[in-house]
């Protein structure tokens, strides 16, 4: 058990599925050999099969505190990093050659069912679900590793794989119920989201949260009463963990998505939400209904001219308020030869 726990809250009402978080993470952390297929941050359309495909039925985690067997996802299930025939198209001399991935047989990519969603018109629906490693309080990956190669940092609860100790046995991949661990077959080790710990250690929030144009992601400590995480998880109780039934106590929380009214056979709006509550309950547990009602009632209050501290927090007018103590600019801590100047003066 760590002394403190860092956590993230993602407001699904604001995620627009732009994948800026995915790219920010990819550019920063997964560019080494063997990492091409890795997306430590993913954003998938729900309802959908997610990444890796059908991960929700791949097992792992704990039931009645007993470790559950799990499936070890393949690169194909995660979604291979496609290679394209750019050279042939640009310089091949044949203007009729189309751009193709993997010679025209790409298989399913990591985000292959984007915007498909569920339901029938006029009640079709979807929302975006960003996911990273949950840096669980009881990490199934850590418990499974026979090498003791996975550590949970005492100071902030970030879960890290020691690549010097890891032998690539991949029990962690099987045990993780969220399937957020990848295998690098060049380096022979498992790899995953590190919650940008070098940035966190220097007071800079994660790349995915800082780059998010939708202001979706809050970062901070669970026990910091002045921080956004404590307020959303404990004070207002509107942020819920994903698939808590796996028993790992994930530390990424979600503000569940509201949706427009379901349309009846006569084309009239009903009292039912377009995204079925049963589906959201299957993801976020039974409290999701109560949470959605709370957000709706706060919205109604604001619409009536009242104020809502809770909605002000969700709206995040002051961007840096989203990141708890991690508000430094990366430039402040970068050991970079790049110099920034303003009006001829180095900043």
């Amino acid at each position, binding site marked *: 058990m760590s002394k403190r726990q860092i956590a993230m809250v993602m407001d699904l009402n604001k995620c627009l599925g732009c994948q800026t978080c995915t790219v920010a993470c990819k550019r920063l952390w997964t560019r080494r050999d063997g990492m091409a297929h890795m997306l430590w941050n993913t954003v998938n359309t729900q309802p959908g099969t997610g990444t890796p495909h059908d991960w929700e039925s791949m097992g792992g985690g704990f039931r009645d505190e007993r*470790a559950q067997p799990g499936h070890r996802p393949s690169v194909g299930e995660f979604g291979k990093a496609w290679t394209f025939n750019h050279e042939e198209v640009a310089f091949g001399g044949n203007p009729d050659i189309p751009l193709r991935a993997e010679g025209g047989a790409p298989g399913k990519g990591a985000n292959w069912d984007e915007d498909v969603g569920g339901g029938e018109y006029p009640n079709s629906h979807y929302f975006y679900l960003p996911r990273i490693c949950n840096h669980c309080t009881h990490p*199934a990956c850590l418990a*499974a590793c*026979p090498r003791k190669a996975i550590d949970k940092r005492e100071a902030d609860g970030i879960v890290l794989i020691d690549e010097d100790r890891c032998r690539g046995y991949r029990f962690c991949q099987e*045990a993780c119920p969220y399937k957020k661990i990848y295998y690098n077959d060049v380096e022979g080790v498992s790899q995953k989201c590190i919650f940008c710990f070098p940035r966190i250690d220097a007071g800079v929030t994660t790349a995915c949260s800082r780059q998010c144009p939708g202001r979706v992601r809050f970062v901070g400590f669970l026990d910091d009463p002045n921080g956004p995480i404590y307020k959303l998880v404990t004070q207002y109780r509107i942020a819920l963990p994903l698939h808590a039934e796996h028993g790992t106590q994930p530390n990424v929380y979600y503000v569940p998505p509201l949706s427009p009214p379901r349309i009846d056979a006569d084309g009239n709006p009903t009292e039912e939400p377009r995204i079925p509550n049963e589906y959201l309950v299957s993801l976020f547990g039974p409290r999701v209904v109560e949470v959605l009602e709370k957000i709706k009632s706060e919205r109604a209050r604001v619409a009536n001219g009242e104020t809502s501290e809770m909605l002000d927090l969700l709206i995040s007018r002051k961007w840096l308020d989203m990141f708890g103590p991690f508000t430094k600019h990366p430039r402040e801590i970068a050991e970079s030869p790049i110099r920034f100047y303003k009006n001829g003066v180095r900043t």
Partner: protein
Amino acid sequence: MADHFAKIMTARLVAVVGDQASAVRRMQRYSAWTSVLAAGVIKMRCRRVNDIGKFLSPDSIGWDPGTFESVSMSPAPLAMQPTEYVRNSWQGKEYGAIRALHVAAVHDGRAWAIRAAGMSISPPHGDFPDAFAIALPVRGNPVLALMGSEEAPIHYLRWAANKDGVRSVLATGIGTSQPGPPMQCHAAAQKTHDQWQIVIKRPLNVGLPGARLTAGAKTGIGFAVWHGGNDERAGIKAFSIDWTELALEA
């Protein structure tokens, strides 16, 4: 030896499962396994030859099939696996199917070579490679099945089908293996029908923390085999349970 080993196993199990009664019950499940120990220590003679260079390939004519010894192999028990996940996820699954390794060893006073056969070949493109390891005690009297201890480490040389050469590994207990001393080793593997034949050569004398072999002396040797096609890795393997006596000709 079997009693001594059973005591150590039970102590280890108490640490894993929490109480003596459960540990004893688990030990009883492995009665067939422990009975193998009662069969006694197997001996392996290491001939002295003039030139070890004639023994560097599994099909080198120097290897005399008449000198091959058969070493019994068994699945490493689930109760010995260091994490609950590994124990639960392999419950009821078969592994460590190889029952005997056929081995022979020679030395020329400077280098030592071992030839092993009997390991089945996995189909290509699996997640884990076929692998084979030899274990030698560094000092003290390490328990092979527990992969040694701080006071009595074990030095492994591990060959894997997806890598060149062998990896030198030092262990002081289950799950503790770390890079061992660098050694000038040679490994050659051949596929014959559906089985691997492997030769590993290493210097006779090495400094600590490597395991030293001495002409005219006896030591112990152990074996482990992983069938990659069955997802065998880490403690999910076949092993030789206890030391085989290795006697090097003077």
